[in-house]
């Protein structure tokens, strides 16, 4: 057993830390978030130059062949800067699908990700489905050598920036069956695809996507027709591991900021950190953070385990991280008092991002049920 990081991993962490330092202080991030585009293309180019966009892809596909621990490091450091560029969406989630696709799909699409040319988003959620990945009313029917897609996808994270989508569709079966789900690549410019973009409360962007008789070649199918559910669940678990990593980065910043503030903010003639009731709150924040780090390591190390083990690891980590995200986010605001309530201080922005992570890819109740049914 060894929980230390290799020299190469430490180097990776340092690289990202200096990127954040140079490009993601509070004012710079605010400028990005408030810009019309809502992300910064130059940052994306820099990710490409640093090799980050090729991190999980095999050398054969032009990547660095790194594993989940390296992804965890990147996501954690991005979490500290509240990076909005859709790294997880493109590289971890959509990259995860593409890595497991046919040789021709890999060849066609992975180079565009690694070079930074393409940005991808995963369109899976539907309004009626809540967090059930299998609850799909979006359908695809084969017509000759094309699928014709009809349906609606909701709150597609990073949708406005993406030029390519991976879309979960029903090719057969009933609305909530796990059989009959397929995964298709859809170009944003496809005829019949209409999109409504909007900001999200955490400073990111998302889209509502309507698909009306959108035609895609059957070569754009990832995996086997009707057998997509398992693959989707695997990729979502990998994504959960990455957003847990992002979350612990954000928690760390909040905890440090709160301790620092309580050491310097004086009321009643002393730093407020001298009051025991606040000390204990910060100790609880610290313990929640440490447990979250541990669960994040755990899930990232168990992604390759057999199903039940992986299921419990991902859902367990998500439950711990969601609880800690809420407690740490709310406590950081509380301990900063009125200042914690303002848009001018970074604390509120971390709180908001953490509050969105709480229910991304399923909230606590959802994952407790998944955990319980995993056996």
């Amino acid at each position: 057993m060894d929980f230390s990081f290799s020299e190469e991993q430490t180097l990776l962490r340092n690289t990202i830390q200096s990127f954040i330092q140079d490009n993601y202080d509070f004012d710079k991030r605010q400028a990005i978030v408030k810009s019309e585009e809502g992300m910064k293309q130059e940052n994306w180019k820099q990710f490409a130059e640093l090799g980050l966009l090729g991190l999980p892809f095999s050398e054969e596909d032009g990547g660095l062949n790194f594993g989940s621990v390296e992804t965890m490091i990147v996501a954690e450091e991005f979490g500290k800067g509240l990076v909005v560029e859709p790294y997880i969406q493109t590289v971890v989630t959509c990259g995860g699908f593409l890595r497991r696709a046919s040789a021709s799909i890999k060849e066609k699409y992975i180079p565009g990700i690694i070079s930074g040319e393409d940005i991808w988003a995963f369109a899976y959620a539907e309004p009626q489905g809540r967090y059930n990945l299998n609850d799909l009313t979006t359908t695809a029917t084969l017509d000759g050598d094309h699928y014709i897609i009809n349906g609606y996808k909701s709150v597609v994270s990073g949708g406005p920036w993406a030029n390519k989508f991976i879309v979960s569709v029903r090719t057969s079966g009933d609305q909530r069956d796990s059989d009959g789900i397929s995964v298709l690549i859809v170009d944003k410019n496809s005829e019949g695809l209409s999109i409504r973009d909007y900001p999200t409360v955490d400073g990111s962007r998302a889209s509502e996507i309507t698909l009306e008789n959108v035609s895609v070649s059957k070569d754009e199918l990832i995996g086997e027709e009707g057998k997509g559910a398992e693959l989707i669940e695997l990729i979502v678990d990998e994504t959960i591991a990455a957003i847990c990593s992002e979350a612990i980065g954000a928690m760390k910043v909040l905890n440090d900021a709160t301790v620092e503030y309580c050491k310097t903010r004086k009321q009643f003639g002393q730093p407020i950190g001298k009051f025991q009731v606040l000390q204990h709150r910060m100790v609880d924040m610290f313990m929640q953070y440490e447990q979250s780090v541990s669960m994040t390591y755990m899930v990232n190390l168990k992604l390759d385990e057999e199903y039940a083990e992986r299921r419990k690891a991902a859902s367990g980590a998500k439950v711990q991280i969601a609880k800690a995200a809420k407690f740490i986010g709310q406590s950081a605001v509380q301990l900063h008092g009125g200042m914690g309530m303002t848009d001018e201080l970074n604390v509120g922005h971390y709180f908001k991002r953490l509050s969105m992570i709480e229910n991304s890819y399923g909230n606590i109740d959802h994952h407790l049920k998944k955990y319980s049914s995993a056996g």
Partner: protein
Amino acid sequence: MQLGFKEEDIKFRDEVRGFIKETFTDDMRKTLSLSKNGHAGKDLHVKWQKSLYERGWMAPNWPEQYGGAGFTSTQKYIFESEMAREGAPRTIPFGLSMVAPVIMEFGSQEQKDKFLPDILESNVWWCQGYSEPGSGSDLASLQCKAENQGDHYLVNGTKIWTTMAQYADWIFCLVRTSKTEKPQEGISFLLIDMKSPGIEVRPLITLDNSPEPHQEVNQVFFEDVKVPIENLIGEENKGWTYAKYLLEFERGTAYSPGLYRGIKNLKDIARDTSIGDGLTLLDDNDFLNKINECEIQIQAMEFVELRIFSALSAGQRVGPESSILKTRGTEIGQYLQELAVEAIGYWSHPFVEDTFANVNEPSIGPDYAATITPEYYNGRKTTIYAGSNEIQRNIISKAVLGL
């Protein structure tokens, strides 16, 4: 000991219901529902308050000699409950329930004549100048200074978290008039015309991101502001006593009626949220248990309030126990907001910049979703303001438990 209201109370309740039905129009309901922070612009609030004034119900807590409604304690409770149950606009408290009682108790006859009628008729909008950047929980450390220049005070300094100062005609301020060993002893209570030269109001955008002019709080700056000496309340350096008197009013509200309304809204949302197989979130036992657990907490709150109201009816004073209401009321309120965010699932993510301006655009997700997450964010203030809940617990610990 008995539950239930007397016949004349039921009659009064129906009168209140009738008034709300007639006066709280669909337009007003719609406008209020667009607000992320519970405030819906000056016009709506003034219009509402003027209707209350015309009915004689603007000031349930004022003595009748000043135009108070002349309610019994039970009627007050019924009135507040019915208003909260319907989600009617809150009467803006700064004039009505904060500065007015202080003027009545400690003000001169001239001050009473000048200020009270305009407050009652909602002709003048007040705001509260208490907190400063360096003085939050420790209010007595405030630094905003007023120098006595004979016929006027010269005020310099700043006040922060000033709710709706952008609409205010007047501000009541705690200012430092002398440096004393005990900081409480050098504070005075001053009424300041917001149109005085040297006052600047800067909006503070909070986590709900309501844009100007719908921001909730501001910072107010005073630079060489001349305030006529006759605007001092009571005696110089006695302001702390008046401020403490005022705080009792700030903390003495009933929470449960508004919280019950929150439960009703939450159930409506859950009923509207599909979880598949023709079921709704209200069929999900995990979630239903949370709603019900919250409802039970509210009931416990309600009966604490009823006991307090009953004690008031019997002529007793409510002391530091009112801190129980503030502490539990705000914490349950926050829990309700969390549950609402939980209920709407992914619809908690979209952000609508200006809900008032976007009224004609089709909403993303259900109509009610746009304000739920901002309300949750904004609600975090409730355990911070008006004496943080840590401070409230200190009060209970010292003043009630004697620790």
